[in-house]
């Protein structure tokens, strides 16, 4: 007697529960942007850590670098792949931005997509942005 109600209820329930899938079918999803490697970074191909480690852990690396520069005055970093880096975000040839020249296409591309707003640039300056 209540069979019809139960089945309709179940169908509505299934539709509702699976709504994220329906939503994804009807809307187009944006693929995560790849950070673009330009100029020196493209030619170099070797960052401080390997690609996937860098993607996952660059924030901890920067944190570690900051402590050693500010507190211990150690400013050179010889990474395990043999390359030497100047432990700096934005100053000098051998810093992060010294190699990854375009902040907008490198840092911001992912950060904007992932909705993270690190406050690095409240203080640090991108040399390219200063005319």
């Amino acid at each position, binding site marked *: 007697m209540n069979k019809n109600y139960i089945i309709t209820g179940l169908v509505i329930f299934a539709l509702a529960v699976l709504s994220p899938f329906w939503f994804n079918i009807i809307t187009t999803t944006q693929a995560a942007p790849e950070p673009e490697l330009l100029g020196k970074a493209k030619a170099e191909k070797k960052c401080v850590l390997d690609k996937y480690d860098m993607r996952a852990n660059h924030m901890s690396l920067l944190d570690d670098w900051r402590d050693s520069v500010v*507190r*211990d005055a*150690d*400013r050179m970093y*010889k*990474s395990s792949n043999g390359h030497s880096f100047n*432990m700096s975000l934005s*100053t000098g040839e051998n810093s992060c931005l010294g190699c990854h020249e375009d902040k907008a296409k490198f840092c911001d591309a992912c950060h904007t997509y992932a909705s993270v707003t690190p406050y690095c640039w409240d203080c640090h300056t991108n040399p390219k942005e*200063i005319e």
Partner: protein
Amino acid sequence: MMKKSRRSFLKVAGVAAVGLGASPAMNFASSDISHPVKSKNEHGLSAHRWGMVIDTNKITDEVVEACVEACHKAHNVPDFNHEVDEEKYPKTRPVNHKQEIKWLWEEEFHNAFPDKEDEFLAEKYHDLPFLVTCNHCKNAPCVKACPTQATFKREDGIVLMDYHRCIGCRFCMAACPFGARSFNFRDPRPFIEKNDPAFPTRTKGVVEKCNLCAERLAKGEQPHCVEASEGAIVVGDLEDPESEVRALLNEHYSIRRKQSMGTEPSVYYVM
């Protein structure tokens, strides 16, 4: 099945124990090669305790101006008299001129040395400009006051700040007897005439002060004020009896600011 005697069991157990003990050492030895290494710059300057000697006989108004400008420009210290670029920074609040940010500035004798103002002090001292800055004290009260260790004393005696950690509580400003610290009540960027990308700016809500140009010493260069001072300011190692600063202190009578506070300032004034 083989019958195990107690003797053979102990033998095997002994070998196994040695193996277990050796494995961490082996791991350490094998992984050691690929560990990243952090080091100082090759040409960086170092000291046991950095100090500054200011020869008050060589300080003129021009020298003061040159030093302050060199320091403030290079460290992106905002000047609230600077006219804001309305296009770049629209809706900037009007300036409260009671606020100022300074790393190095001019002071009169009776303000710089309130405990040394004698009744019949030589008249020339009343008009002489005195350059004052952070004293990088040996017993820095700001370091003790800081609840987050944003202000700390580096091994080489420089009292430094990690602006990332500063929460803007301003305990350090209350603790410093020299007024060497300034607070960013607002975003300093609109008031920086020309942003020098070689040094970060600060942000709203942090305290700032002289860093004895730690970033330049690390590159083997002298601080900005020393370069601009035409020989009136010398920076060197106070603990090294052979250093230029010690030679100067040995030859001349010098004073320090508010010595009675017991903070042991590292900035000396040759009189």
